[in-house]
């Protein structure tokens, strides 16, 4: 309010504009792909729950405008949800199961919000990278190719020898490396690039989930979903601009995840958010069993909200008693309004 006291004859002008002009910012994406025109619809029909012009009435809510061209992106969060990569399976002479994976690091311009292009660094052309899935004790062999112009690695969370840790063995541009280790301990883990500056290499998109099932597997459920929580610093100013699960803000808000009343649902939830201290998951109108890091088959908590710090993860299990639309989102609510929000559409 001190502004009003200090109004001078001409100082009016500055207030008069009511806005601070933003002068020529310099973009960071040099050779971007041509953005898809806003409003172009590709694949699927958006269930636009909060459009003021639809039958749900004029509920003003956070929401981007336009549609993302997922075909041009080359990946869709809908698929990432249930896409488990078990690798090429064979048996070693000692009887151990061998799972072989081909992974490359690449650079890709991704339309992260409708018409907003972001130069992402990807494993296998998608963010998050493939969800590796093995059983405790399996032999993992990951043939990695760095197809970018920068050095990268793959650093797995798990138990393995130091030279397989993907930290000091930096893989230069164009080079290959094979990571090999036994899958242990069982639980929900993650992997990411460990080249410095670390935050930059991770948040650009070099991360993914790594699931190790216990021998004999976890109890059977009807649905399994992978959700990797992340932030995107669009303008590289050191502050996240938008948030998401599985990289694309608001995706599951516009394209709800559908399942049926009574179906058992398991969510593998990983937090790879950089530059913010905690992330969280809140389930609407329901409670879930929570297995932190998934390293036990006994839940530690029956709740509707959990928090995860950087690289923390856990497994959620729940089912819905009533049909309806149920939100799930970060209860760090500004993250929710900046994209980390989704909807479960529970049908009869």
């Amino acid at each position, binding site marked *: *309010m001190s*502004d*009003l006291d*200090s*109004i*001078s*004859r*001409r*100082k*009016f*002008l500055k*207030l*008069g*504009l*009511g*806005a*601070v*002009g*933003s*002068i*020529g*910012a*310099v*973009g*960071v*994406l*040099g050779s*971007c792909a041509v*953005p898809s*025109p*806003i409003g172009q619809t590709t694949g699927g029909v958006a269930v636009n729950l909060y*459009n*003021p012009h639809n039958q749900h009435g*004029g509920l*003003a809510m*956070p*929401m*981007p*405008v*336009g549609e993302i061209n997922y075909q041009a992106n080359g990946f869709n969060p809908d698929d990432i949800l249930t896409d488990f990569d078990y690798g090429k399976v064979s048996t070693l002479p000692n009887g151990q199961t061998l799972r072989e994976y081909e992974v490359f690091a690449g650079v890709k311009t991704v339309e992260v*919000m*409708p*018409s*907003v*292009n*972001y130069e992402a660094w990807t494993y296998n052309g998608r963010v998050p990278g493939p969800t590796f899935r093995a059983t405790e004790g399996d032999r993992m062999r990951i043939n990695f190719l760095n197809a970018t112009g920068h050095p990268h690695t793959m650093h797995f969370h798990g138990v393995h020898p130091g030279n397989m840790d993907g930290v000091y063995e930096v893989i230069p541009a164009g080079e290959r490396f094979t990571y090999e280790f036994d899958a242990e301990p069982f639980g929900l883990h993650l992997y990411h690039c460990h080249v410095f500056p670390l935050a930059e290499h991770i948040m650009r998109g070099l991360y993914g989930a790594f699931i190790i099932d216990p021998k004999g597997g976890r109890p059977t459920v009807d649905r399994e979903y992978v959700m990797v929580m992340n932030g995107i610093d*669009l*303008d590289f*100013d050191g502050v996240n*601009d*938008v948030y998401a699960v599985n990289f694309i*803000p*608001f995706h599951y808000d516009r394209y709800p995840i559908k399942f049926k009343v009574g179906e058992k649902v398991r969510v593998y939830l990983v937090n790879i958010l950089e530059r913010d201290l905690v992330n969280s998951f809140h389930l609407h109108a329901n409670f879930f069993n929570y297995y932190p890091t998934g390293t036990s088959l006994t839940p530690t908590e029956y709740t509707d909200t959990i928090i995860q710090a950087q690289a923390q993860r856990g497994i959620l299990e729940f089912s819905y008693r009533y049909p309806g639309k149920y939100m799930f989102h970060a209860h760090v609510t*500004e993250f929710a*309004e*900046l*994209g980390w929000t989704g909807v479960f559409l529970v049908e009869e």
Partner: protein
Amino acid sequence: METATQPKVQSQPQSGGKTLALFLIPVVLLAGVIALFLFTNGAGLNVEPAAPIEGLQFERTILRPDQIEFQVQNTSPQEITVAQLIINDAVWPFAISPGHTIPRLGRAVITIDYPWVTGSPYFIKFFSSNSVPFETEIEVAAETATPTTGTLLSFTLIGLYVGVIPVFLGIFWFPALRRLGMQWMTFLMAVTAGLLIFLGIDATSEAFEIANEVAGPYQGVGLVGIGIVATIMLLDAISRRQSGIGRTEEGQRLATAFMISVGIGLHNLGEGLAIGAAYSIGAAALGAFLVVGFIIQNITEGLGIIAPVLRDRPAWVNLLWMGLIGGAPAILGAWVGGLTYSQPLAVVFLAIGAGAVFEVVYEIFKLIQKDSAKRPMPITIFAGVTVGMLLLYITGLLIK
């Protein structure tokens, strides 16, 4: 020299076509060079920027109940696409007209349905398709006054209060000041010069300040230069033509008084513009104290107008005109500023005002020069100019 070259020029009257050709050769070469650059992508120079340079100017923000409107202009070297909007940490849907892609120097109107709260600040961040952010801010949210006959009346009243009334109040000193002696009249003219110098510096500084906010292609600083210099040259030319007509000294003093009122009028135009713009968005709590401050400060302007003609008997119609010319532009300025505000236009107005004021100072010094030729009084002039500047400085304390 002139006489020597003239016959030479006249000796080649038949070379009209040849002259034209000689003029055209560099133009043709220029076209060739431009074509070379365009078709070879810089003729060996790497002219592609590593990253797109984008600029978006927020020209006006209008707040209506549950709705905010942004009027923007694309000031980048190429077209830009406004893709997403974040307001106070929430991605928010918006409508943009005519379209998301704005051509170079093109304008667009962006509207969001947003439940804003009176008195709260809002930070708005737009992202272009290249992830380039553009930020703007609403310091204190308040509903924007819509231009109705009521607001027009308000703008008129503001102009009356800060322009017309004080100038006339100053002029009403005429009968009293007439009784002063010659030296006091010279002192008053020097005071006027001081007032005007102060106003001129103030307007110039303000013009440069806004010039820095003006979108790049409009070259705000260039506008300031053109406005000041062209105004000075024009007024000087007019004054020289008039003195060339062969006026009496009294006539010249009257002419100077009129020019002072023109200068002050242009200055008040800029002032009205600023106040109108602020008032229209509700940012200006135009308190009674502030208005009183304006009246006191602008009385000195009326005083300045009549200083050159104190020893004469100007017709009252002339005094009336001087007052109107000096004060009424504040009303016009308030209208323009309140209804349509444009930064480049504000810069031009301020620069013209500054130029006019400086030229008038020059005219006043010419008059003082004539008086002091008869009787030197350097201390009186020094004291007058200083008092004039201090007068505005001190009355300025009331409104800053």
